[in-house]
């Protein structure tokens, strides 16, 4: 038996370039994640004002301005880090990358403080009423994504400190940053729904 692919085929000269598989995959992932979020956003919007008991969003929610600024500016710092990597400036890359992680940590810390206050002071838990149910699920789903993003970011930082991240890996780093931009963009929607429309 000939174990070899045989037939040669007509050859067409000329350049043949296709999009990178990584980009196609990360865009697909973002697409499906967006759909997941839209289900939770739809549930949140549907249940606004349908709680039978308090507390209501107007009574207990405070607009998280500073955490929002932290999270959104981390999109800028990760871009700066990426640019530094492309210019082969490793020190600057690591610095901006670390700042991105710290900004994300600040955001998560603020969420933790907010939840602690809601639970202990206002006695709002996920089972208190529909507001609690939808609030903790939607914000929690987003926070989960932030934490996953932070794990990825930290992994990259560890790799970089061990000298494993070179401009050759630029596209991989870029994919992490695309995911991070997605997490930030989703926060804009969650913020609008929960803290603007929902109050």
């Amino acid at each position, binding site marked *: 038996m000939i174990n070899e692919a045989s037939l040669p085929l007509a050859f067409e000269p000329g350049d043949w370039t296709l999009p990178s598989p990584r980009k*196609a995959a990360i865009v697909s992932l973002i697409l499906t994640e967006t759909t997941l979020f839209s*289900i939770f956003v739809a549930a949140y919007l549907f249940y606004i004002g349908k709680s039978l008991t308090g507390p209501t969003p107007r009574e207990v929610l405070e607009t998280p301005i500073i955490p929002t600024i932290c999270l959104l500016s981390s999109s800028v710092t990760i871009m700066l880090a990426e640019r530094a990597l492309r210019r082969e400036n490793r020190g600057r890359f690591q610095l901006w990358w670390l700042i991105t992680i710290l900004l994300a940590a600040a955001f998560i810390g603020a969420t933790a403080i907010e939840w602690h206050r809601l639970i202990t002071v206002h006695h709002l838990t996920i089972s208190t009423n529909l507001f609690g149910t939808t609030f903790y*699920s939607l914000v929690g789903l987003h926070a989960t994504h932030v934490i996953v993003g932070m794990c990825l970011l930290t992994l990259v930082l560890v790799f970089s400190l061990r000298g494993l991240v070179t401009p050759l890996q630029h596209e991989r780093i870029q994919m992490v940053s695309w995911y991070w931009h997605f997490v930030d963009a989703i926060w804009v929607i969650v913020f609008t729904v929960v803290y603007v429309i929902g109050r």
Partner: protein
Amino acid sequence: MATQEITIPVDRALGSSFVDRLHGLVVTVDHKKLGLMYIGTALGFLVVAGLMAVAIRLQLIIPNNTFLEPDVFNRFFTMHGTSMVFLVGMPIIAGFGNYLVPLMIGTRDMAFPRLNAFGYWMFLFGGLLLYFSYLGSPGLAGHGSAPDVGWFAYAPLTSRAFSRGTSTDYWILSLMLTSIGSTVSAINIIATIIALRCPGMKLMRMPLLVWLMLVTNFMILLALPGLSGAQIMLLIDRYLGAHFFDTQAGGSAVIWQHFFWIFGHPEVYILMIPAFACLSEIVPVFSRKPIFGYPIMVGATAMIGLISMSVWAHHMFTVGMTSVGNTFFAISTFLVGIPTGIKIFNWLGTMYGGKIRFDVPMLFCIGFLFQFLIAGLTGVMLAVAPFNWQLTDSYFVVAHFHYTLVGAFLFGIFAGFYYWYPKAVGRMLDRRLGLWHFWLFAIGFHLTFDTEHFAGLLGMPRRIFTYDAGRGWDTLNLIATVGALVQATAVLLLAINIVRSVKKGDPAGNDPWDAWTLEWSTTSPPPDYNFATIPTVRSRRPLWDLKHPEDPDWKYE
């Protein structure tokens, strides 16, 4: 591009004992092996879930039968539906996509081989977890064993008060695992199609199967999170005391239906499009003509994908939506008839004037055409809201969706089995057994599901475990059960054929059907690297160009 001779010794496997081969399957990242593992596992689940269907039919063979207890009956129809959709339909799609897409677009593997293996194992363990509920569920709370809430698990039936024990949790968690598997497999196939086509394989030169796989996998990405999201909410409801579907705390049971069917209706098309894909490859080859209306086929598929996202509430005409809602979903459902009609006419147009070879794959395709047409017509009937009020949750609905999923989906997939089996194994499936399989299956199918339409019209509700004599359903149910046994026999013949032909089938050669797409240019079965030289293509039928250099397609495209 320099052509390099690659010679690989034939017997280079480290060993061929059972353990060695098993180890090979566990560690493999090869798209062909994984594709066959997907299909093989799916066939295993098909047999299990099919036997459940036979048991259900045996219980209904005569009035007041006591073959199955009512609670066992409930578990059987739940497990039958859930398995057929998530453990048979979805992995068969993934299997066909995995096996065929890289071969058809002329590349050596998927974009992410390890992710591919991960997807398979998630699917397998998700499926095993679902069936483990039979053992694992009674142990904890003593309530129930396998899930018994129906495959769409309507709230509030799934709340803790009504579904005690852990059977519903097994349903949730196992489907989440298989959903993760389906999602990563969809991402992988999309990335492969977008990024790894061989030189010259422009989008509009891809075989239609590849196009349809692209659309169906995009639909998986857009539809599956609806189910996963709703299941996360249900899990939070059940374990953290949240109120998403808890009507006593202001929650809504109807929103579960919306979320489920936002996933559930596109899911039907996710399953159907790969069957369309098989037809779009097989009908031209067996009619000896290129596909009629290639760009229209691509457009119609994309249109089905788009429209199917906005028809979900036609499953919910009886829950009390507004007239505007009913009208919207009735009209959008009618609209799906247009692109599907276009497809049927294109396949007929391909056959028209062709030199048709009535081989087994083609017979299944022709069966598909008849049955899919009837399935579409009853679908349009059910889309008429007032008609639907009368017949919803009756055997008419059961007959309708089995016409699509058995009469169309399964016929298309069976056609695919007979068509690509020689490529995957290197030997032909036996033609005589294949003809027996086709005719027995077609006859059994019509015995079962034609009669169920009438049982439904006479008022027989679905999911009842028994019925009284003298309602006019007795004979119809008897015929339906006989038909189910005939279908089971036919599937047994397929199983025998598949196993027997591995060793005893006629050698297939590279290109047994005189076909035109790239997978037939390599050996059967293809080597690990698929193509020694990455091919280049200039038209939609590269092998036609190769076989007919005097009259190649690229001159006219």
